């Protein structure tokens, strides 16, 4: 480990410009019962960047995203082949604790899903289940997380109020704060703005541009403009296959595959 690190540090600057890899996905096949949902996916997802996953409904975008923090295991009849290497280890390895994976790789869902608790308790939840009880430590992390999620100013005077009383956009930012509170390295977002209004969407996109400085972000989106606005690289999925993966600017201006072009130019999808 140590020699590698020194090597990396002393590597020549041009090489250091290349982005580090957060997830190395190798030959990923996913099945729900008999149906194959993902076919031979092979992709390297860069760190400290927003990676957008686009594609028509039912193409396996969400399935792929949910593989990255092992959320798919909750579904019956789910089966997976291949490897997802995160931090030097296959997260599907038998020795890997799924709880640990999900703490390091946070997730925000399509529909805001705050718990029926207070705003404060929502953010503190992930810490409490880790056994953190110290009030001042909790207070600190809750405040920091809410600030990072750009919702602190709106809720600081009513932390004890029920989270369900917030607006949809606020709830979604609260869910981001809740995910950030456990200090993950990666944030997975599954169409995070599809259930909220355009102004709230704008705020969340702004937030993502800020968060990408410290986190690796992978986001499924239905909205191609959104992918173009916030992401550094884009993956295009079709019928369970990864058709193309490249820098977002390239995908949207000069796609390498005809099917990608058809999709982004709106010929179908």
């Amino acid at each position, binding site marked *: 480990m140590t020699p590698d690190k020194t090597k990396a540090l002393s590597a020549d600057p041009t090489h250091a410009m290349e982005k580090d890899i957060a997830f190395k996905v190798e030959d990923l096949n996913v099945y729900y019962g008999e149906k194959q949902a993902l076919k031979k996916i092979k992709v390297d997802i860069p760190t400290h960047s927003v990676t957008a996953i686009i594609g028509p409904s039912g193409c396996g975008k969400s399935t792929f995203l949910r593989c990255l923090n092992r*959320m798919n295991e909750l579904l019956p009849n789910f089966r997976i082949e291949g490897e997802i290497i995160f931090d030097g280890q296959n997260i599907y390895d038998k020795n890997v604790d799924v709880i640990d994976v999900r703490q390091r790789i946070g997730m925000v869902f399509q529909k805001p899903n705050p718990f029926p608790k207070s705003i404060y308790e929502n953010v503190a939840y992930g810490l409490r289940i880790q056994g953190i009880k110290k009030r001042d430590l909790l207070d600190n992390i809750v405040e920091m997380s809410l600030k990072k999620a750009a919702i602190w100013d709106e809720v600081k005077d009513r932390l004890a109020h029920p989270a369900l009383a917030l607006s949809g956009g606020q709830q979604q930012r609260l869910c981001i704060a809740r995910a950030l509170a456990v200090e993950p390295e990666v944030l997975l977002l599954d169409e995070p703005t599809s259930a909220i209004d355009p102004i709230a969407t704008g705020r969340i996109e702004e937030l993502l541009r800020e968060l990408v400085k410290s986190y690796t972000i992978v986001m499924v989106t239905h909205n191609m403009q959104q992918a173009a606005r916030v992401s550094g690289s884009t993956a295009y999925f079709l019928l369970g296959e990864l058709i193309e993966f490249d820098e977002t600017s390239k995908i949207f201006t000069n796609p390498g595959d005809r099917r990608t072009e058809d999709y982004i130019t709106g010929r179908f999808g």
Partner: protein
Amino acid sequence: MTKPRQWIERTIEVGLFLSALLSVLVTLGIVGVLLFETVGFFKTVPLLDFLTDTEWTPLFSEKHYGILPLFSGTFLTTSIAMAVALPVGLISAIYLSEYASRRVRTILKPILEILAAIPTVVYGYFALIFVTPLLQKVIPGLSGFNALSPGIVMGIMIVPIVSSLSEDAMHAVPAGLKEGGYALGSTRLQVATQVVLPAAFSGVVSSFILGISRAVGETMIVAIAAGLQPRLTLNPLVPIETVTAYIVQVSMGDTPTGTIEYQTIFAAGMSLFLLTFVLNIVSYLLRKRFREVYD
């Protein structure tokens, strides 16, 4: 052409209304009779005696009309029953809703619900001739009639009420909430106890209160296995009598209509009615207060 059809529709509507009215009228009738006889009772017995006297001996020559011994009996058996039904029912509900596979659930839930279909008289004899002797081996001081054994058996009878209704409430918690819990690194137990349970709180509390109402109103088990001795005590090892068991005792006997002995059962019945009525209101208020609305 349309006339006869309109007539048929009208007749159906009236018929349905009368059916609905019937149950309302019966309820009003029952409350009316209860009230009438209870008023008669309190013309003889001062309310204060009824509420504070510590003995209940209307069938003896030296008469006392204190409801407290009967209430303590009901309280005792109900508490024991809920001490069994609450944890067992809740744990079963958590297992069925959060741990069991769909297959296990479809088999287990109906079997559990069969417990509620066993006639209570069977439970009564089960308590008297099976559970009590069993308990006597562990607790030497236990009387043949006692509050403990019927309390436990009543608890077993109530388990499916608590588990089935709690499970329904927990099952209705949106999958998105559970996913939110798992995505933060929760274990299944943490999701069950800290996400699902609070979200299903109103339904779970309702199931508890329904269970309590059932225990308070249960008659056969306690009449058979708890003894028929009104006693102001919280000792579960000695014979006691509950409000319901007393009503059975007098109804079965040859008490003449219109006597004070006869009226006691209405006073006792009225107290019981008020108790379960209050429980229902509490349940309603709790449901309203803690209900989470998901769209």
